[in-house]
């Protein structure tokens, strides 16, 4: 059934098409090799703290709604070196993945509670509450929603004092390449905010490398 996004403020790019099955468009700022840096706010009632974070995209497969890369936390308390993790992302394209996580201890209520933290999500809320957004066509939407799940520690052991049990709700802006996210883990501080911006390694412009798997 065709579904119309109800809000009048909905950006024109949100299609009410009945397909709901097209892959998202490629965005060069989210391609392999792209780097982002920023912070993750880990504040709680007891402390006010933020880690510096670098992210680099290592793989992107829009057909399968897949993205992966590494995340480096720089000034982690009690860690001698920066801590690097490898993460895999699910792109909410309504074909491979919807807004409902359906795993990692996240209920639809948890999902809605986190997604609504992103202002760009509000035009989609109505339909997502109905079917997780399955009938939405996001192929021209200027934001890409994702879940990033850290899979393993790259340079430290699991006894480093950090946990990767949770995952991030992520929103990427196709226009300026900025990323915001919220870490979700029922056993950690709620709504730890991730804020990243596209970086250019000190160049006077943007540089793009690439590889091609066989």
């Amino acid at each position, binding site marked *: 059934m065709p579904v119309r996004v109800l809000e009048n403020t909905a950006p024109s*790019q949100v299609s009410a098409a009945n397909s709901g099955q097209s892959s998202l*468009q*490629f*965005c*060069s700022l989210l391609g*392999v*090799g792209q780097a982002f840096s920023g912070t993750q706010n880990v504040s709680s009632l007891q402390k006010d703290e933020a880690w510096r974070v670098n992210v*680099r995209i*290592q*793989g992107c497969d829009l057909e399968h709604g897949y993205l*992966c890369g*590494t995340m480096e936390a720089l000034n982690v308390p009690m860690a001698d070196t920066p801590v690097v993790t*490898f993460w*895999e992302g699910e792109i909410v394209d309504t074909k491979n993945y919807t807004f409902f996580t359906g795993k990692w201890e996240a209920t639809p209520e948890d999902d809605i509670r986190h997604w609504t933290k992103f202002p760009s999500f509000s035009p989609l809320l109505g339909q997502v509450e109905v079917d997780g957004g399955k009938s939405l066509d996001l192929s*021209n939407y*200027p934001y890409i929603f994702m879940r990033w799940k850290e*899979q*393993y520690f*790259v340079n430290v052991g699991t006894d480093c004092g950090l946990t990767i049990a949770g995952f991030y709700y992520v929103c990427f802006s*196709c*226009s*300026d390449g900025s990323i915001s996210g919220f870490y979700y883990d029922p056993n950690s501080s709620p709504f730890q905010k991730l804020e990243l911006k596209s970086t*250019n*390694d*000190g*160049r*006077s*412009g*943007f*540089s*793009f*490398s*690439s*590889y*091609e*798997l*066989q």
Partner: protein
Amino acid sequence: MYLIKEPLSPSSAISLSSIVGCGTRSFFHSPPSTLHELPPPPSLSPPTTTATSATMPTSSAATLSSDPILDRLSSDDSEIKLIAIREVKNHIIGNRTKKLFYIKLGAVPAVAAALADSDSNSDSDFNLIVQSVAALGSFACGVDAGVSAVLEAGAFPHLIGLLSSSNDKVVDAAARSLRMIYQSKLAPKYDFFQRDNIEFLLSLLRSENENLTGLGAGIVIHSCETSAEQNILCYTGALEKLTTLLSGSLSQRDSSLESLAAIIKNNPEAICKFVDLHSGRALSSITELMKDRYPRTRLLACMCLICVKNSSSSYLQDIGIKTKLVNILLELLDDSGQVGDEASFAFSSLIAEKEDLQKLAFDANAIDKFHSVLQKHPLHPKRLEGVFLALADLCSKLECCRSSFLSSQVLNLVVDALTHDDASVRTAACICLRSVSRSIKNLSAGRFMSERIVFLLVRLLSDLSTSVQVASLGAISNIVVDFLPHKSTFMQSGGVKELVQLTKAMDSSLRVNAVRALRNMLFQTDKMCKEVIFVELTASSMASLICDPEPSVQEQALALVRNFVDGCVYSVEYAFAEDGIILDAVGRQLRKSPTVEVGIQGLYALSNIASGNEFHKDAVMQLLFPQAENRSQSFFNQFLQSNDNHLRTAAIWVIINLTFPESPGAFGRIVNLRSFGIVSQIKKMFNDSCMDVKFRARFALAQIITFGDS
């Protein structure tokens, strides 16, 4: 040992007394056979045949004629000759070593000469004919050297001629021998486009003699390759006739299935006709044969159904039949003979490029099944090759398959096979490694960058077989993408030198794969690694590769330059080595109206250079927009106006970097870009249909407008 099953001909069981005694008479009084219905056989002669009956025996026989058996085979006494032929025939049946021995001795021309000298209308020559025909067939069975010898001895036209004999036994023997010959790739190609030939083939298929229908099917299996050949067999009744054999004997069923597959493979038109035959009963019969008690019949039925399924999206698409095909083929892997060997190849053709079938196979525990097959020792090279290729197809798309593969011990077995004696096995092992190393998660974890794997693969770069080299390059291309900057294991293996050598190969498949491997190695690598590759490759070689005659090599070479000049700003200098020979080559290639892929890589290379300092930006500016050029016809506009989204995006990134506001020379470059009509073109892209292009165009305009809008 790999034994091709060779049926004992009835005539081989005839006792000596029946040949030399009165028993022979009875053969000539047998009732007339259906052979009389056959039209005269067409003049079929193998292209390789130069000898005729008049010129036999050949020189090889002559030089060895001192051997007693050769003397007896060429004896003037027909009884001595007959006994000798029979003796040779009985020696060689099912014995490859003895076949090769007698072939080397020159026995085939001698037997062929005996056949040529015999009189097919003479009662006394009957046994000699049957025995020599059976001996020739036996030489040809499963041994290509035997087929060559029979063809070179000029026996082929005689065998064809004997199909018109009035004697059933002669016809049977000739048909059996010809079937043996047609099982070899060396058999002469049958020309279906000659009217006489197609009529002769149809008469074979119409016959009630099982050997003749089998020969007809064998000819189709051997010679039907092109769609034109498939169509002629469809529309002259051969397809229909072959389907009626599905209800025949075991042998008829099997040859029918195999020949039907040859006619319909990759031919939607033929499949349409086949599916409609007998109101769809032919297809139903084959579906039923998937459950036959004989493994070979089950395999051939599966192969036929895979042809139907792969060539059309209309038939056999339900999950039930797909699951059955997967399960039956996995079961057939348990067959220890030829069926088990072929099952994995059929499995590959079923799942290749099809994610849904790969998932079904994964759910059916296919990885575990292939793992258990690999644990049986020793395995025939054909079996190993098939299993590795099947695993490669299974792991080509789905991460769950790759994870399952890596969590078992299959990887070790595949790596062991990199040193196998058989080049096909080495190739298949490399292809399997290439497929499983598409897992970014495991690449990033350094799972494949081990000394053992890397050193063995690098050694294969100098393999004598080009297929092995290409397959090894494919695996290396993936494995070097380990997301680590130093690539120390690969550096230590000496692989860079080997890769650079292969970029100079005459074979373009080697060149393109070698350049791709180096390009991948340069992805996000450090200064030291870049330096080693640059010194080994040299700027002039890179410039030559950019201008390679093959567009695929050009594309990879430009992507290599793109990666070279990425990273720290210092890296941009590589493009300016040797008086800017690389940069000039990039510019020349972009002006040649390159393919979209070449254009994308070339533009990103320039974009990366333009993200450097003022000097770098000005060099790109001068390359793309020289002062002397006609400003109303800039070649760069073709990229901004391309229909390809990625090419337009790449072109805008170049402009974004040239107009980077913090650069001191940005204003001057913007003035120039305006004069070339670039700014007005970008304004037209403000609402581009591609979101990435639209946002980059807006970004570029925002930068330009900071210097004023005129």
